[in-house]
């Protein structure tokens, strides 16, 4: 058997990462979560399940994804070598597919013909729709109206793949509301529906299960870094954090190493227009402990417990919470979480594109910004691995709009050049 899912010391048997995590959900769902937990435990020890997952990850997704030395970006930073873990090379364009295929296989194994998913950037929705098409499952994706606007291309891809996209107009019309709606659907249809959750959030066992499925990213890094650098452990790892699945996928295989062997782990949170502006999605820097979507975590909520609408340029980071395992890492100093603004991300997107010919997702651009800053402070014999969580195809229309806006603002005081008609 070639694929094995790693085991970690967290969470405890009640689904707690320290004080974080748990299962704060309507009682209706508790039996379903117990059932899921049992099915997952059984599947992860079943060679038939693992072989099928392994085959799909290799032949359908195209794993392993590359670990690529970004030479020009490294020169630009002028410090440590910057490696890019190319999750953007995955079929469907992001790390999300790793988890979706695994959960969809689990759904099929559990005899559930109907799957639902929530999506922000649309990448998890596309990955869910893809897995559903591949396995012949009915698929419904909940997506906020605002995100539908920002991610029109992904909405069309989902529909083309045969999924039904349900527009969510409650609350802030973004990822958190799509997640609420998916949970409501699950509460209603729990007997025949499998909820494919897209990040390391939600009630236990989701944060642990999604982490296990995404850990292939970090496990591959060990092997690839060994081959390239003669040692398995890089000096630093940087990843963007929405709910935190791509970050956990690359962090977890290193996070439980003894402290002196552990790389510097840096998660980048979306700081939007700046943490002090109040318009951001930085749950560690600007939030406090609360409960959302079934788990206790750092959360943007006011002093009466109402969720504060997050803001980010990137739909996939536009979430008011952060996965419970990240909260534990932050509290215990295993990883650090730094805010990166919309403007910094937009600059980093253009930087990577110009220097390396790789257009990253807006989410990923947050990590690129922090990685360049970090590499600059390190020695040339050291390495920084950035999780290139996804490619920017989905974002080009939005980026074009944003850059055009910026140009108009810059040009505002000057008289406009009259258009010349031939």
């Amino acid at each position, binding site marked *: 058997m070639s694929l094995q899912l790693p085991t970690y010391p967290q969470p405890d048997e009640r689904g707690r990462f320290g004080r974080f995590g748990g299962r704060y*959900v*309507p*009682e209706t*769902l508790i039996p379903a979560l*117990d059932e899921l937990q049992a099915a997952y435990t059984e599947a992860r020890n079943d060679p038939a399940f693992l072989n099928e997952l392994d085959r799909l990850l290799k032949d359908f997704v195209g794993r392993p994804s590359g670990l690529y030395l970004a030479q020009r970006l490294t020169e630009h930073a002028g410090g440590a070598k910057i490696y890019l873990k190319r999750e953007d090379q995955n079929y469907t364009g992001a790390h999300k597919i790793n988890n979706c295929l695994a959960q969809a296989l689990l759904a099929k194994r559990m005899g559930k013909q109907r799957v639902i998913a929530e999506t922000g950037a649309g990448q998890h929705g596309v990955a869910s729709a893809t897995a559903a098409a591949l396995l012949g499952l009915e698929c419904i994706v909940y997506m906020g109206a605002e995100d539908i606007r920002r991610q029109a291309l992904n909405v069309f891809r989902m529909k083309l793949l045969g999924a039904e996209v349900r527009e969510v107009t409650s609350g802030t019309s973004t990822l958190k509301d799509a997640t609420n709606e998916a949970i409501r659907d699950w*509460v209603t249809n729990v007997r025949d529906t499998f909820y494919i959750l897209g990040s390391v959030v939600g009630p236990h066992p989701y944060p642990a299960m999604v982490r296990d499925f995404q850990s292939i990213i970090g496990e591959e890094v060990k092997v690839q870094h060994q081959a390239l650098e003669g040692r398995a452990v890089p000096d630093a790892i940087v990843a963007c954090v929405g709910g935190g699945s791509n970050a956990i996928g690359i962090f977890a295989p290193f996070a439980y190493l003894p402290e002196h062997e552990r790389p510097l782990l840096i998660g980048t949170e979306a700081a939007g227009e700046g943490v002090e502006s109040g318009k951001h999605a930085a749950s560690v820097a600007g939030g406090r402990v609360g409960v959302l979507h079934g788990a206790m975590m750092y*959360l943007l909520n006011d002093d009466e417990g*109402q*969720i504060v609408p997050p803001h980010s340029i990137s739909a996939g980071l536009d979430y008011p919470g952060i996965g419970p395992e990240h909260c534990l890492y932050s509290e215990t100093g295993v990883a650090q979480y730094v805010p990166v603004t919309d403007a910094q991300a937009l600059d980093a997107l253009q930087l990577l594109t110009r220097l390396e010919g790789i257009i990253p997702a807006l989410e990923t651009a947050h990590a690129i910004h922090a990685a360049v800053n970090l590499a600059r402070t390190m020695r040339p014999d050291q390495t920084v691995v950035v999780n290139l969580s996804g490619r920017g195809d989905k974002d080009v229309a939005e980026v074009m709009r944003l850059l055009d806006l910026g140009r108009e603002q810059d040009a505002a005081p000057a008289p406009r050049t009259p258009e010349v008609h031939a």
Partner: protein
Amino acid sequence: MTATLTPTTPGAARLHAAFARAKQEGRAAFIPFMTAGYPTAQAFPAVADALLGQADILEVGIPYSDPLGDGPTIQRASEQALAGGTSTRHTLALVRELRSRHDTPIVIMTYVNPIYAVGPREFMRLAQEAGVDGLILPDLPPDQDLEIADLAAEHGMAVTFLIAPTSTPARVKLVAEACTGFLYAVSVTGVTGTREGSALNEVPAMLALARQYARVPVAVGFGVKDAETAAQVAQVADGVVVGSAFINAVKAGQDVGALAASIREGCTQN
């Protein structure tokens, strides 16, 4: 450790007495629900007064931004109440005002995040001060947090947890034994809201199971919308909870008191 069963808290005693009084009158207890601050903070007290005129127990919801156990009706009501400035502390102040006019027991329905944000101890203190008799916690399975139930008891209040048609016998036992106010049985797998047709098929079997373990009255809610559905539920339950139907009535400008009176009538047991 399990949450201590404390039927001796003043809140629990008042709730149990309300169920007993209704039973004496040959009825299931009638428990209307309304979102605090709906339709507006100004108009809410009059709506609550109308409900309290008929209710055996009034359930007041703290409007919440992310109510994942609720359907569109209560969800929209929450959004409207929040937009009008009503949230946690304000809800407790509204309850306090209601208690100055009414002796009917009042329970608060709240998701857990407002409790954590205010601070569990501070929240309980404010609720006790407001005269709250009990808490209904739709996203808190009792084994998630035992402190909340103990703190509620310490502050004289009862707690109500929920069971659903999907609950296994072991879960029913655990939940039933943790309830000190009443046990809330959700009639359907689903969120709050009125439904077409009878949504009550699963209720009798669930209640038979619940009664093996519950030492408190058992109320049924979700999907009860009129005297007729209330009458069906009243044949098997000690209490009937009605929520979305009242929000719809307020929205439509109907006479909430008259609807409440007719549903209370429907709660007659025979």
